[in-house]
């Protein structure tokens, strides 16, 4: 499995990290090494073994539909990098027309 700096750049875009060209050069061989080291799991890819997503077999954990107090709006916004009119202020969103 060859992982090129280009591949890493694509993954970084998907993960929203603006990696520098130097980082891409540095990380690509490391990441490839890691992927080689973990590729052995593929031995069981076609094995008839159910996957385990949860460590312990719990099911049906629910809470009653009861309203709990909200954070005070000041506390909700206290950690915000920017706030305005009781809302979180963020830079312009380039996205879907809503």
């Amino acid at each position, binding site marked *: 499995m060859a992982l090129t700096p280009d591949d890493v750049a694509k993954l970084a875009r998907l*993960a929203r*990290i*603006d*990696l520098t060209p130097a980082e891409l050069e540095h*990380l690509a061989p490391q990441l490839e090494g890691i992927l080689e080291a973990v590729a052995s799991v593929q031995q069981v890819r076609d*094995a008839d073994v159910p996957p385990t*997503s949860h460590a312990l077999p719990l099911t049906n954990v629910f809470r009653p539909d009861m309203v709990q107090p909200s954070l005070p709006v000041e506390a909700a916004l206290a950690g915000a990098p920017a706030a305005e009119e009781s809302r*979180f202020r963020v*830079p312009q969103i*380039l996205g879907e027309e809503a």
Partner: protein
Amino acid sequence: MSTSPHLTSTAADLAAGIAAGTFSSEEVTRAHLDRIAAVDTEVHAFLHVDGERALEAARAVDAKVAAGEPVGPLAGVPLGLKDVLTMQGAPTTCGSRILQGWYPPYDATVTTRLLQAGLVVLGKTNMDEFAMGSSTENSAYGPTRNPWDTSRIPGGSGGGSSAALAAFEAPLTIGTDTGGSIRQPAAVTGTVGVKPTYGGTSRYGLVALASSLDQPGPCARTVLDAALLHQVIGGHDPRDSTSIDAPVPDVVAAARSGDVRGLRVGVVRELGGEGYQPGVTQRFTEAVELLSSLGAEVVEVSCPSFEQALAAYYLILPSEASSNLAKFDAMRFGLRVGDDGSHSAEEVMNLTREAGFGDEVKRRIIIGTYALSSGYYDAYYGSAQKVRTLIVRDFQAAFETVDVLVSPTTPTTAWPLGERVDDPLAMYAADLCTIPSNLAGNASASFPVGLSPEDGLPVGLQVMAPPMADDRLYLVGAALERALTERWGGPLLDRIDALQEVPA
């Protein structure tokens, strides 16, 4: 070593003295704050210390004692909290620049239970960024040093919590263990660290690394202290869907008993031999012989799928982490870079995550993004989850014939700072023995079993017990502790060189 006798006391003795009014929590707390001021410049176990708050909490306990009100079994005892758990009024950084200065508006369940039990939180302990690492060198705020040899790593990710214990800056600390982050630091610092059964302690307020693996647990210098702390933080929490709704096993009774007669102990064949430091193997083997001499039945057990554990872990962890860390996006909290009117929200996210995350975090996010992406899911994440099933089955089969499994906690003792920083695979190998228990969710702990002859550094023995049989860990740990302390003529940490006390 500082003069106060409180620094080397066990938590149990401190709590007893405080409750009896023999000495005050304020006095004990002040001694530890002084010790931190004296040695933490060198050790760097703490990221944040709030002496005023700690003393106020201590005085509150003293007032209760003076008024004759009942206090909990660890009331008034100072403690260091790993900086991955939220506590109001203190910053939670997770060792990351992206969270610098973030004050959470809520307490983790573990924090709530500590505060309600009257423990005195001294501050937040250092850690690898977002708990990714085995050396605490990945902290954005600089590494922690091993009090046994300050040129060496204290383990990770909870190196701050282990070093604080070994440096006598706190008698108790809280760690979190995703692949060994409590047990491996305990092993390399000669302290006790317990990863409870997954679901045995609440993850609410624990900033997630890998949700299906993370588990908070107690760190201490003695087995009984760890058990007392386990009892305080353990138990069902309705805010955590993966929390087990059952009473905590009686870990304190087990720690007081230490009777291993008739206990069936399985030595895991796959976790030892080639690649293990000879001194580690030697001390481990001696400890197993000791258990046998104390009446345990020792057999060898094979868990063939453990060979695949590291590979499965380094796919499952980054996958979950890539998703868990997506929320660090500069929109609602934490660092924001590039918000100068010229960048879109998306660009600000990209710039902030680039500037705010360190190398290891980036590596794991990229690997996780890859392993989950369409077209690769089945080969990587899906296969890793199948391996996880095989590991669970190995444990189940083993626990049909033995009560506990044992292995060295880590293949080597503490290595020099810097040695593995840019060699992720070498760093990952430190978790070889600890990872299977995280994948299967069972209880596991590390106990000190001596110093490796080659380098004079601590060696840990790992005990693994079935889910919800956490008490068995303490049974084995207490047996070893009692016999070894007798053999050594005192606790292992008595043999640590005094740290240079540097005025702050």
